[in-house]
């Protein structure tokens, strides 16, 4: 089943930079997709369009039945509840513990305490941080912090997990751990889209690879590696 359909999308920023040019892409439910490209190629813009941080100038983006390109500001939350987002800089709240950071995503909707507890523990277990639930983010390593961010992104059981360079700040070994976590989540049925320029990760995972260069879709490989792009 098609989860995301991107048709003829153009995006140009106000400063005149063309970020995306006539991009067409289709992603099925359960896919694991790497979006690769050099810095400034437009992969981050693609992710931002998907969670409606930015609006396309033209073209159509349909995500799980929601017309994202026409979504009004007031309604964006309806889209955000269907997806989880992970960033390079984790975006954790320093004054809350690991547990509280993850529970935060549920509490703001007024879920009952029991449900919040159960779901939060489940998410933290999934990313392997069960024994660190009571610690504060500052006392964790970068990889652990990113895992907390992933736990928060999936605690709502979203259909789609968007990752914008989640390993950008991490050592290669830790990066691989993070991607393994993402793979587990993907195996549980969540579609994962990950923007990265980490060569080793892409090569080792043998997943679908979408290549973006200067805002254009330059390649789409079923079991791609970074070499496809170079070749």
């Amino acid at each position, binding site marked *: 089943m098609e989860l995301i359909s991107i048709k003829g999308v153009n995006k140009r920023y106000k400063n005149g930079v063309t970020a995306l040019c006539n991009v067409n892409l289709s992603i099925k439910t359960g896919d694991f997709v790497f979006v690769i490209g050099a810095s400034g190629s437009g992969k981050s813009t693609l992710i931002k369009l998907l*969670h409606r941080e930015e609006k396309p100038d033209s073209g159509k983006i349909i995500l799980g039945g929601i017309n994202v390109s026409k979504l009004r*500001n*007031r309604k*964006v*939350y*309806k*889209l*955000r*509840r*269907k997806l*989880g*987002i992970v960033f390079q800089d984790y*975006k954790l*709240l320093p004054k809350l513990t690991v547990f509280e950071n993850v529970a*935060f*995503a549920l*509490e*703001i*909707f*007024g*879920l*009952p305490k029991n449900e919040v507890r159960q779901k939060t523990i489940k998410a933290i277990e999934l990313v392997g941080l069960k024994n660190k639930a009571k610690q504060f983010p500052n006392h964790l390593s970068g990889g652990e912090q990113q895992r907390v961010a992933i736990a*928060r*992104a999936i605690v*709502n059981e979203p259909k789609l997990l968007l990752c914008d360079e989640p390993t950008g700040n991490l050592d290669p070994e830790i990066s691989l751990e993070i991607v393994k976590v993402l793979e587990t989540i993907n195996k549980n049925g969540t579609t994962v889209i990950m923007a990265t320029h980490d060569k080793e990760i892409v090569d080792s995972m043998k997943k679908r690879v979408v290549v973006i260069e200067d805002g254009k879709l330059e390649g789409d490989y079923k079991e791609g590696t970074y070499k496809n792009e170079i070749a």
Partner: protein
Amino acid sequence: MKLLRMISRDFRDAVKSVFRNISLSMASLSCIVITLILVALAIITSYNINNFSKNIKNDFTIVVFLENEIDQEGISEVKTKIVENKNIEEYTFQGKQDIAKEMMESSNIYKNIMETWSEEDNPLKDTFVIKVKDIDKITKTAQDIEKISGVYSVNYGEGIIEKFLKIFKMIEKALIIVVVLFVLITMLLITNTIKLTIFARKREIEIMRLVGASNFNIELPFIFEGFILGFFGSILPVITIIYGYTYLFDNFDGQIFSPFIKLVEPTPFVYAIALIILSLGIFVGMFSSFRAVKKYLKV
């Protein structure tokens, strides 16, 4: 249930935030307290002035003295002309004999002197006592009546009451200006307090958006914060008003300077004002934070 849990969470956040920015919250609170006390004073003063004006308006009359030589026919001519004036509420005629009788009854000294007068050499004048509809036009009315032939003179306090009322009106206006000014300053201060809260929680708000909080979800804690500031800011003024005014009333026996100026009874007057003050405090608090949210919380 879900909404209730959400609201209680937002309320907790708002309380926390009040204490987190305690210095600014205190500034806003003191400003609300001062403003509301001023507002209460203004309402009490202007209500009392109104009450007082109404009382003296009821008491106030024009006394029309007629010529000494006037006969019955002349009197009724004057009467028809007085009735023609549109500002006349009611009038009563007092003949000079009636007045003499009244005076003699009131004191023995008068009696001894006036007993010797015959009906012809009674030096008193026949009078009309007139109540007017609009006290502000009393001078004009008195002047019109004075022009009627057969009228010797009129007496209406020569505008002293008018001057009084004018001063009262000026005091009222000045009070309103001061109150409006203070309400505006308070609003600015609260808006500023909420603005700082918004900036302090920028990261939290960003994350709330990312995980799918609706605008309502994000805005509610700030509105609550304004509510809390307004509510707690109005407690002190309410207590001051209820006890202060009752104390004042009891201490002065319900009047100021003379029995002429009567104060309004404290019950239910002060409770009505307390209610107004409380609602105003809450409204100003919530409205100001709403303004801040619309201005600084770009959605």
